[in-house]
């Protein structure tokens, strides 16, 4: 036996009892499952979300856990596939017997597992935006991102002030895009906006000059693009190439500086609603969210060496809400469910949460700030 092998064997002997002892006390740890699309077409959502959750779980555990109970985080990569999300949800509930599930990243996946979690009485805190996730309310299902309707309202309000009334809408053919399109079309009449043309593009679209030519021919005064996919940068670039010098509005899906980098000079002047995370440092000191936003931004950016995004923030809020509720109610899922419903005035990255039995999102229109791009950076939009 070589020296190396001896050392390894000794090490194994030393470590094994700990490994087993860990298993034994597993009953004391709080098992939290997460279904996130770390890879695949929605990876720009899932990857920062997974990193955020891991970072938070590590921090909580190194500070002694919640009331002495460690968080045992199990992250599953669904690659944005609803079928995978379903089987992971079943696996987490039946085999791992998790206390709660955080995620999924996309609305489509969340809707697929909404019923499964409700039936199994497992708390689900979704990181996806679509309003249908919490409306109608399912007792065990919550979500952290702001409702699409609020984003649409903010956009229309800005348009009205700018004197825009005739617009064109393009959206991606995924859950996020279709939900946004629906809200935009529903709200338009009451806000005095005419949607002259509404088109849906493939979520992997790489060229949109054709459809934008069509919009241009209809003489619209502004374009709204509603998607979370990389096509957000392509819309901006294609519009400039087609010499369309009308304002481009995007959804809160644009809240990732990567898309600004990709669109380069074409991103200048894009107007979109987003959470205050993107302008954390320039917020006034008395903003209730400032402390949590700056902490998350600095922790994330120093740890992963990449820019923070609002999507990671949704996971941050999900973990924050869960841990707050567990601190109050202990590790009992019915009590924690009630504790979440009673959360008031909790400042997260997406806004100040005020939950109730009817409102499982807890955010209002003030959660959004209108931002624009200036010099390659997000800044507050001033009328």
């Amino acid at each position: 036996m070589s020296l190396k092998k001896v050392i390894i064997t000794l090490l194994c002997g030393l470590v094994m009892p700990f490994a087993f002892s860990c298993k034994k006390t597993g009953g004391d740890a709080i098992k939290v499952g997460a279904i996130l699309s770390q890879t695949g077409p929605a990876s720009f959502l899932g990857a920062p979300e997974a990193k955020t959750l891991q970072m938070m779980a590590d921090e909580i555990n190194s500070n002694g856990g919640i009331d002495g109970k460690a968080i045992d985080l199990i992250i599953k990569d669904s690659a944005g596939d609803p079928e995978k999300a379903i089987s992971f949800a079943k696996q987490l509930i039946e085999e791992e017997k998790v206390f709660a599930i955080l995620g999924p990243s996309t609305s489509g996946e969340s809707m697929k597992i909404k019923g499964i979690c409700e039936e199994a009485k497992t708390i689900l805190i979704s990181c996806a935006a679509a309003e249908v996730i919490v409306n109608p309310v399912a007792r065990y299902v919550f979500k952290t991102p702001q409702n699409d309707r609020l984003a649409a309202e903010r956009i229309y309000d800005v348009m009205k002030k700018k004197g825009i009334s005739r617009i064109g809408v393009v959206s991606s053919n995924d859950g996020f895009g279709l939900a946004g399109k629906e809200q935009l079309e529903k709200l338009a009449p009451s806000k005095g906006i005419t949607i002259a043309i509404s088109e849906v593009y493939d979520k992997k679209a790489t060229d949109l000059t054709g459809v934008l030519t069509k919009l241009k021919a209809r003489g619209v005064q502004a374009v709204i693009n509603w998607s979370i996919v990389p096509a957000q940068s392509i819309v901006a670039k294609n519009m400039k190439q087609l010499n369309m010098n009308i304002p481009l509005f995007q959804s809160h899906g644009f809240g990732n500086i990567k898309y600004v980098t990709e669109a380069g000079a074409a991103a200048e002047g894009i107007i979109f609603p987003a959470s205050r995370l993107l302008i954390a440092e320039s917020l006034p000191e008395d903003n209730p969210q400032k402390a949590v936003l700056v902490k998350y931004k600095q922790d994330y950016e120093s740890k992963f060496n990449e820019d923070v995004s609002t999507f990671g923030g949704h996971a941050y809020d999900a973990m924050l809400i869960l841990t707050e509720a567990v601190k109050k109610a202990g590790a009992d899922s019915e009590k924690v469910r009630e504790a979440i419903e009673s959360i008031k005035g909790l400042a997260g990255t997406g806004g100040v949460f005020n939950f109730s039995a009817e409102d499982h999102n807890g955010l209002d229109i003030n959660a959004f700030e209108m931002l624009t791009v200036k010099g390659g950076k997000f800044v507050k939009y001033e009328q």
Partner: protein
Amino acid sequence: MSLEQFLQYVLSGVTNGSIYAMAAIGFNIVYNTTGIINFAQGEFAMLGGMTAISLSAFLPLPLAIALSVFLVSLVGALVDFAFIRRLGKPTVLNMIIMTIGLSIAIREVALHIWDEKVRSLPYFTGTEVSSINIFGAYISPQVLWVLGISGIIVAGLALFFRYTLTGRAMRACASNITAARLCGINTRNMVTVSFMLAAAIGALAGCIVSPITQTQYDCGTPLAIKGFTVAILGGLGNSAGAVAGGIVIGLLEAFSISVLPLAYKDAVAITVLLIILFVRPAGLFGKKEAARLKEF
């Protein structure tokens, strides 16, 4: 429809069409020497784009692209050495399944080398906001690069196949592989050359479209599907057919957008493909006799 709009759709169609044509040419080159469809062709384009983006961080752009094309052609050679050659007497089905597996493997490797994020090369001339006015239609200067470079590739390939010994040997393999072997042509090496050539063309295509379409680890598959459609439409193995097929599909897609909702774009292209295949099973420019001699 005004003249400006008409022209805008034509330009959009021709641009996309020439990108499809480049992918189709890659399919054709490998098909001609091996009789298989290399489903990893789209991944070559992705690798080309990604490698050039990484290299452009510390090399001037033309050099980064040239080096990326060279490296990806080596990957093409590696694919042949490591896999295709090792199959003793492969059936067409064996080889096709192998290329599908390879395309998945390459995508996963790319995901680990780079990450899930979208990247792009800088515009070759001008920036994201540059726009050129052509009789009232507007295009990005990059579109001219795409059209120019695809034109040069097609012309270069035509010359290569007609006037060089290697090119002729590859054509000989395409028309009859046994006869080519009897003439003393090392058909195995021709397969390697064809993989390298297809990979290089794919990589170059991946580089020139990157500023417009952006590059991500999984952007190869949709391109490969379009390229495959175009190759079939033009007649498998026929490079001129690929160019014509590409432009036909590109224009059809562009003009379908002008009258139908965008969502029907792909349906229109595929419907036309089906109709043409019913009427001319060998594709627009494929020879019926040649199609019968192939294994499928």
